[in-house]
């Protein structure tokens, strides 16, 4: 049963003989704003004609009985068999996993390479072997309802960057049904009766409820990403470099985060029903799982801010990636920008300095008079700073860092600038903040604060795959914004995530000359002073709102007095009437 895979286009696809291969995999370029997939209208189950191929990948380790059940469920799917393959990735099972009798037609078994182990490796081994258009992760202790794969796949036919998540309920555990029972129940559309005591994952259900099923979850939607039953286009998976093979736990959360940075939209489909046999490890040993994962994830996911509270240390993935162009800039200007970026209250930052570093001669040279002296000095200064790196061209993107700031040399960040930019961007989940620095005859010079996910998605939507970054090496003069490609991608980002212009002063960005020195504890008191200023500002607005409140209360008071007056008047009238009657 191994090595079957998909049939070649010549013999397959009786459903779409007219479609050449390109058309077969073509998916409309739909634009989804933030994570609100509400504009997509998936067809009803059983009423549409699928084209895309799906590779179901099941990582497995010493779980033959559970795997038999899972494969039995998969054997009873409504999704066309010729468009589906199953890849079981055996992670060093002893005895080795085997493909049972009841299983989908195209089922293969692959093994994690010798000397490798763990869920990360298992997933990646399965992904490497997958030949479909879409990869559908399924855990080995899952039973999928008959329309489960079809429910996932209808979304992938509408959107090329969808990550679809099935709706999983958990059984209380104990002895599960046999593979035969599973097959016949699923086949008879009656699987529910096998698991009548199952319950949803409480936390997940709460998030779905709060966020209209993730439509309002914004950039945090990836946090629901798990490997239990989730599907993703293979191109998207490969573009983020696949699964992190060093992880045996939390590999799905890490993958979800990186997919989010690549522009993915996360869609939970309640029609993709499935049951997890027994409670998950998280449910049984939540504290221990967290204790473990929270030692791994802070390096990988800068977005989990509560895991990065240390004031000084460095982490693998920076929160903000600052790009400073050293070409045609003085040593002092570059230094002012880089130093200020490293001295802020937001510490998990990395700086890339762009310059023709390979042009720096290595041989004997006059130290004070060499032609690229300023560049040399920059190199000298940051050679051993771990947060600074050097490149010839600005990197195409900053993924998986969620934000990038392109800062023209000679402009310095305030202690809180990065923190404020992040806060501003997060407030409305903007994709782009442009900071107006100064203005010359040729236009406005700006610093650009970009959301990685927004630009990645804009590239997917606009289809040329090109990023705006790097095409404007100075990152500054936008004199004629209509003429270049930047404005196109910026326009798409604006549609998808929104964008905003702010003044330099508002976010504490100044020229190198005006900037406060970054020596000693200044970062702290600069942050203090900035905070006080902000507090004063917010107090001012509080005064304003209190004034409005006073006004409202005054009006209310007047109204009440009026009512009081009328009330007493009524009494007077009625008394008068009474008197009139009696007298």
């Amino acid at each position, binding site marked *: 049963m191994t090595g079957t895979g998909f049939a070649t286009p010549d013999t397959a696809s009786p459903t779409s003989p007219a479609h050449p291969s390109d058309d077969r995999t073509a998916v409309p370029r739909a634009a989804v704003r933030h994570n609100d997939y509400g504009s997509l209208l998936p067809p009803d189950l059983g009423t549409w004609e699928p084209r895309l191929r799906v590779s179901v990948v099941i990582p497995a380790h010493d779980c033959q009985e559970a795997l038999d059940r899972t494969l039995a469920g998969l054997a009873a799917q409504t999704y066309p068999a010729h468009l589906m393959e199953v890849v079981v990735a055996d992670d060093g099972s002893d005895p080795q996993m085997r493909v049972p009798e009841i299983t989908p037609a195209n089922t293969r078994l692959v093994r994690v390479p010798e000397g490798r182990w763990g869920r990360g490796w298992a997933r990646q081994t399965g992904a490497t072997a997958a030949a479909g258009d879409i990869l559908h992760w399924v855990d080995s202790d899952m039973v999928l309802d008959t329309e489960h794969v079809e429910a996932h796949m209808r979304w992938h036919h509408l959107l090329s960057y969808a990550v679809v998540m099935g709706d999983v309920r958990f059984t209380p555990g104990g002895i599960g049904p046999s593979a035969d029972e599973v097959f016949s129940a699923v086949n008879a559309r009656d699987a529910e009766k096998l698991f009548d005591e199952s319950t949803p994952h409480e936390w997940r259900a709460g998030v779905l409820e709060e966020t209209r099923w993730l439509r309002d979850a914004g950039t945090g939607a990836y946090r629901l990403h798990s490997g239990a039953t989730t599907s993703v286009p293979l191109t998207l998976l490969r573009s983020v470099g696949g699964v992190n093979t060093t992880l045996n736990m939390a590999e799905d959360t890490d993958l979800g985060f990186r997919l989010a940075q690549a522009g993915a939209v996360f869609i939970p489909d309640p029609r993709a029903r499935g049951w997890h046999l027994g409670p998950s490890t998280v449910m049984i040993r939540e504290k221990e799982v967290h204790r473990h994962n929270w030692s791994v994830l802070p390096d990988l996911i800068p977005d989990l801010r509560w895991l990065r509270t240390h004031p000084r240390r460095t982490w693998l993935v920076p929160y903000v990636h600052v790009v400073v162009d050293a070409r045609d800039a003085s040593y002092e200007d570059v230094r002012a920008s880089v130093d200020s970026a490293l001295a802020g209250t937001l510490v998990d930052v990395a700086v890339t300095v762009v310059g023709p570093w390979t042009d720096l001669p290595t041989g004997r040279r006059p130290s004070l008079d060499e032609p690229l002296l300023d560049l040399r000095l920059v190199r000298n200064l940051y050679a051993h700073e771990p947060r600074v790196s050097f490149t010839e061209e600005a990197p195409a993107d900053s993924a998986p860092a969620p934000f990038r700031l392109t800062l023209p040399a000679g402009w310095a960040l305030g202690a809180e600038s990065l923190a404020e930019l992040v806060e501003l961007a997060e407030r409305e989940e903007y994709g782009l903040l*442009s900071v*107006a620095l*100064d*203005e*010359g*005859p*040729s*236009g*406005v010079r*700006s610093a650009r604060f970009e959301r990685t996910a927004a630009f990645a998605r804009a590239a997917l939507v606009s289809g040329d795959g090109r990023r705006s970054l790097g095409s404007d090496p100075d990152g500054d003069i*936008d*004199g004629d*914004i*209509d003429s270049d490609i930047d*404005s196109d991608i*910026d*326009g798409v980002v*604006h549609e998808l995530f929104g*964008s*905003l*212009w*702010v*003044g*330099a*002063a*508002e976010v504490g960005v100044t020229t190198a000359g005006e900037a406060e020195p970054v020596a000693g504890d200044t970062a702290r008191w600069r942050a203090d002073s900035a905070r006080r200023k902000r507090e004063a500002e917010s107090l001012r607005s509080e005064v304003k709102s209190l004034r*409005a409140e006073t*006004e*409202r209360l*005054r*009006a*209310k008071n*007047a*109204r009440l007095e*009026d*009512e009081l*007056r009328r009330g*007493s*008047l009524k009494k*007077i*009238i009625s008394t008068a009437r009474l008197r009139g009657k009696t007298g």
Partner: protein
Amino acid sequence: MSLLIDLVRAARERAGKRRVLVYCAGLETLGELEAYGAMDLDGDLDGLPRAEEGAAEILVLARTATDVRRAASLQSLLAMAPRVVVAVLETPHWYTAPVLSPTPAHRWRALVELRVHQPKQPAWVVEAGFSKPVPAGRTLAATARAFGGHRMDAVAGPVGALAGPGAAHWRPGDPNAAPAPLTGPVPDRFGARGADLVVRTVGEEPPPWSGVETTGETTVDRPVAELMTWERLGRPGGGKILENGIGDLSEPWTIPPVDSRSVNPMNFVTVPTLGTADLSSESGRWTITCDGGTLTSFDASGRVTDVDVSRIRQVRGVRVDWRHSHTGPAAALRVVTGLAAAGVPLICETVPRWAGALGPELARLITSIDEPALKDDLEREEHSIRLRREALRLHGVRARWEQLGAPVAPAATVSVLLVTRRPEMVGFALRQLSRQRGATFEVILALHGVPATHPGVAEALASFERPITVVEADQQTVFGTVLNQAAARASGSFLLKMDDDDWYGPDFISDLLLAHSYSGAQVVGMVPEFVYLASIGVTVHREQITEQITNFIAGGTIFSERSAFEAVGGFRPLPGTIDAQFQHAVQAAGGQIYRTQGLGYILRRGNVANHTWREPIGTFLRRNKRQWRGFRPSALMELSTETP
């Protein structure tokens, strides 16, 4: 109310056995005041003491300043006393003390004591003592003026006479009005007929009017309030009252006007804190409720007061429920027209058949927008502006009397002062002016260092179809002086300084004229709420407070009474900062500057290369309500969104 009783008691105590007269306006019931012989100025006036009669003290008690203004139209009926008290129960919180401003005229020389105080918020009391008995009406009229910022109180047009109960509703704020007995005639004035047009409030069978044959004034009969209740209309034959009788409500002229000096868009709130309210009938009266609470209840007459408007400023909109209230259709129409004039965003699904008096456009506007649209602050304000424009123009006092037959007063004339150094902008600037509507104006185009023969200029002038005067000033003349030279050639009663590169909506000039008419300020303008930042291709909508007396308006929107302009000597002979200098001078001279809504104006903040901007671009990016990529004019600009 107890405040008023206390005032009357105190007056009686002071007067001892001498007579104390009490006049009331806008109080729903006189209540305890009746025991003191209080007379309702909104009631039957034929029984009032004669104006020549005297008293030890006269009190005028009004519910709001709006009611003071209505009473002031009857001021000549009031008797004489050496001591006059005018009390107002409630004023909006932003009103300042109504301090009388006596003129050096002989009639004010008897004033020996003046006290203006607030015995209790939000009431105001004016107490004036004189060395001899004087007509109490003068103090009443002066109090009305004091509430209105001391602008001359008048209704432009010939003298109007008011006869019958509640007739003053037809001409509030006009101390020059001529009160008359129900059957006439209007007392002569300096040997001539006392009025040119008479409005009389009558019952179903009006008594004859005496005097037309001899004096020739026109009379218009309108129904008294009692005739127009639904209960009365519902009786046998009542329908006739509405259909073709005296109660015809098919056209605007059939209902009393809105006192726009008192009920207007001032202090409009652009970002409201409350939800949508309901205007409906509660215990027989029109009431505005929001979230279960009553915000305000309207008088049976349906007249809207400054206090009513102030109480509902924080609501997002008002749904009108037209179902019958026993106060009748006329009261309903008055409430709706009054609220519309104040810019209260009104909505309803349909307008009933009997509401023709709204006028077709107002009826269309009220039904043109639904509640979800009001959720957007900008759309809400656009709706408000459309409503107030129509209501103020159609239902204002002056417009109403013209509809009733008064001769149409000539339109105010405006002279637009347009200075430019850039011949290429002349065409653009004149296009902004070509599309102005609803205003009569001329243009004084001052070419600063540009010859009129410049081809760009000549072409633009050739296609401009309004009166235009071209002034040439040489390069060396400073900007302020060029403007003054332009002003010297202007013939309008208003001067309006506009810029050559900003966008102006088609109602820009008429909106300024409107704001001038209701605000009482000598100088009116707008703030740059909308700015197009050409260098980054972004339109910003800035947080600004509008519709209030202010100390700053944009230089491209300075609209000034000619007399105020001349009083401060025009612009300073400086190359820059002249707008701020002018505004400072006006305020220093005791003038007022009013900032109206800014949706009809977009400031162009161009590239630094073409302009010396004192404000860095960051200034315009602060406190933004909203930003748009590209050129995004408000709907009222009636411009396309193509990048300019």
